[in-house]
């Protein structure tokens, strides 16, 4: 049994709770005073565990960058109790066999839920549907399908995918990037790219696909999810679609909420990411869109890369940034400190809503009697300095190195067992550890 005393909920009430057999068994107004046993949560927020719908775990294929285990450890360190492994592994997660392998690796790591995302097309080739039904029926129970890293560019394939997944209430998560408009693209197309001479990735290449797919989703009455929206125009299109009642959801990454293309000026590939960092105007549109709920969720797009893929010239470098361990802090900084939204909305965007989109039943639950105990404790005021060498991920490619960020996670409870104690990731009963 775990007891937590004097924790603050998002409605500012102070509670004591008890957890037994994986669920919340007692929940009451805080008794106050010094409790004899249990976790003293004074000054801390108690939140449902975070849920990420966009995580690159690199296994199988690039275990030098990350494994399901190291990615799970990083997830716990970032307050996540559920992550979703993107399909662009090697081999690609486009069969029941591969998604089951990833699912089992997640189980044996045992630190958080690891839900495989299935590829939309075989080998991410954009030409032929992968066996979506087999992945849905597998023990992994896949419901999100994505060719992320690549766009499902062919409108007919996209239409068919959207239609087909209706059988099992699946959703297609689109990486919106018109390939012909982004040949050899290296960064946001605009005044910085003009000046520093890097091939541009125009906002329109994202917006054109978002517009097309919204209309396709309306036409076939299916569910569409837009990965990592980065442009003000993209936010506008999704707002319009929602007003029309189209079943579209969208995510934004922490790095697109904070960083802009001005950072590319020195050609340090730590800032190379796809889709690219955009302008200040886009950053504000994304923040407002997230506050308003036009953008439903925050997703990390955690993309680990080994050192040599970033310690080189810009064009030779890989796209991507790690993000699991800094996501909550960046969202606190960009959304709560800026007073755009409160803790209730943060919990909605980082836990409740992602769990709903994906259908993760034991995640994103309200903090109530009988809820599955996937919980975190966060000191909202304490700050910490990001130090890349101290990341739990196998990779070091964080763009936030050296930054002082708010929000220190002290405890994580996954399915009723502690996976983090006093800010240290620990072994949980069923699995291996760090």
């Amino acid at each position, binding site marked *: 049994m775990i007891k937590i005393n004097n924790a603050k909920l998002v409605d500012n009430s102070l509670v004591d709770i008890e957890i037994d057999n994986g669920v919340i068994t007692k929940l009451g107004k805080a008794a106050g005073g010094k409790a004899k046993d249990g976790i003293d949560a004074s000054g801390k927020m108690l939140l449902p565990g975070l849920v990420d719908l966009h995580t690159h775990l690199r296994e199988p294929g690039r275990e030098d960058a990350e494994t399901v285990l190291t990615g799970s450890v990083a997830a716990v360190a970032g307050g996540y109790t559920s992550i979703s492994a993107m399909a662009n592994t090697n081999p690609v997660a486009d069969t029941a066999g591969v998604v089951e392998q990833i699912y089992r690796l997640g189980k044996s790591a045992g630190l958080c839920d690891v839900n495989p995302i299935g590829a939309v097309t075989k080998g991410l080739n954009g030409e032929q549907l992968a066996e979506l039904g087999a992945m849905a029926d597998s023990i992994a129970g896949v419901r999100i399908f994505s060719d992320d890293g690549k766009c499902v560019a062919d409108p007919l394939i996209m239409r068919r995918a959207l239609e087909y997944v209706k059988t099992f209430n699946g959703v297609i998560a689109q990486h919106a990037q018109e390939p012909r408009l982004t040949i050899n693209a*290296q960064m946001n*197309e*605009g*005044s*910085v*790219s*003009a*000046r*520093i*001479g*890097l*091939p*541009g990735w*125009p906002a329109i290449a994202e917006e054109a696909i978002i517009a097309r797919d919204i209309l396709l989703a309306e036409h076939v009455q299916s569910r569409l999810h837009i990965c990592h929206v980065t442009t003000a125009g993209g936010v506008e299109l999704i707002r319009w679609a929602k007003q029309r009642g189209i079943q579209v959801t969208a995510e934004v990454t922490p790095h697109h909420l904070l960083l802009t293309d001005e950072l590319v000026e*020195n*050609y*340090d590939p730590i800032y190379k990411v796809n889709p690219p960092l955009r302008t200040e105007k886009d950053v504000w549109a994304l923040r407002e869109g997230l506050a308003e709920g036009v953008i439903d969720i925050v997703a990390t797009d955690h993309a680990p890369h080994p050192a*040599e893929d970033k*310690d*080189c*010239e*810009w*064009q*030779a470098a890989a796209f991507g940034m790690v993000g699991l361990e800094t996501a909550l802090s960046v969202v606190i900084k960009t959304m709560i400190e800026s007073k755009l939204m409160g803790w209730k909305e943060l919990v909605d965007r980082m836990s409740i809503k992602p769990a709903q989109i994906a259908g993760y039943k034991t995640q994103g639950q309200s903090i109530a009697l009988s809820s599955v105990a996937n919980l975190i404790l966060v000191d909202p005021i304490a700050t910490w300095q990001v130090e890349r060498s101290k990341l739990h991920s196998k990779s070091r490619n964080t763009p936030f190195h050296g930054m002082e960020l708010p929000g220190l996670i002290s405890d994580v409870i996954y399915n009723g067992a502690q996976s983090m104690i006093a800010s240290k990731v620990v072994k949980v009963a069923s699995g291996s550890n760090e």
Partner: protein
Amino acid sequence: MITGHLLSAADLSKDEALNLLSTAKELAAITDGPNKKLPTLRGKTVVNLFFEDSTRTRISFETAAKRLSADVINFSAKGSSVSKGESLKDTAQTLQAMGADAVVIRHGSSGAAKRLADTQWIQAAIINAGDGTHEHPTQALLDAFTIKQHLRNDKSDLTGIRVLIVGDILHSRVARSNVLLLTKLGAQVVLVAPPTLLPVGVGDWPVEISYDLDSQIEKCDVVMMLRIQLERMADSFFPTEREYSRRYGLNSARLAKLSKSAIVMHPGPMNRGLEISADSADDLKSVIIDQVKNGVAVRMAVLYELLGGAQIGDSK
């Protein structure tokens, strides 16, 4: 005196650029004499690190370094370990171990020179000899030198001079460096190109933009024609070579419209008959050969200032 590295034309203040041009002028006068060689950089090692083919720029730097008595090592990517997959970092560390004092780098990746300067891979002075579609600062210096030589006396800057830069601005490192340097020296710069070959975001540059060469040709002092690469046609930047040549090429009809004192420039290598007709290239108004000659003097001045001065390495 400039110190540290030369990565961008923006690194130079107006005074530094003008001083560098006067140094180049003095050095040019010396090397015009019977003994072309100076002992200034004896014992220094200059590496020409060329990841892209460029015979002209490489031999210009090589000549400049040799006239200052430096030891020159030419490292070209073809046939070297680089073509076997060695990284820029490993190449740089190798050159560091061999004691390079200056590295002249030409690389297909924008920002490669800046990366060498910013990382701890190598301590040498870095000179950007063209990085991707970003910059080529010594080309801008030699262009400014040539413009001054023909249109201005010793002391003055380029105020009042109107320069047309015509062609593929989008992919041109020559254009980017020239815009920075020539405007800093007081010139008015007009970029003339089809909209497909102008970068999105060019509106922030301190230049005028025109899509129409004929409307500009009569009122300029300098017309600088950029090389057009034929693969641009395959990518639909323009329909055909002939159409490009008709609309944006310098031909005898346009040459005749130039003012009396105007000069014709081209960074080379030329596509005769495409962006510049043979008679324009060979006309008395053409200073293209002077550009090549001045390139050596300007590069001598850059090496001299970066390696000869006591402050070398200060910016590290």
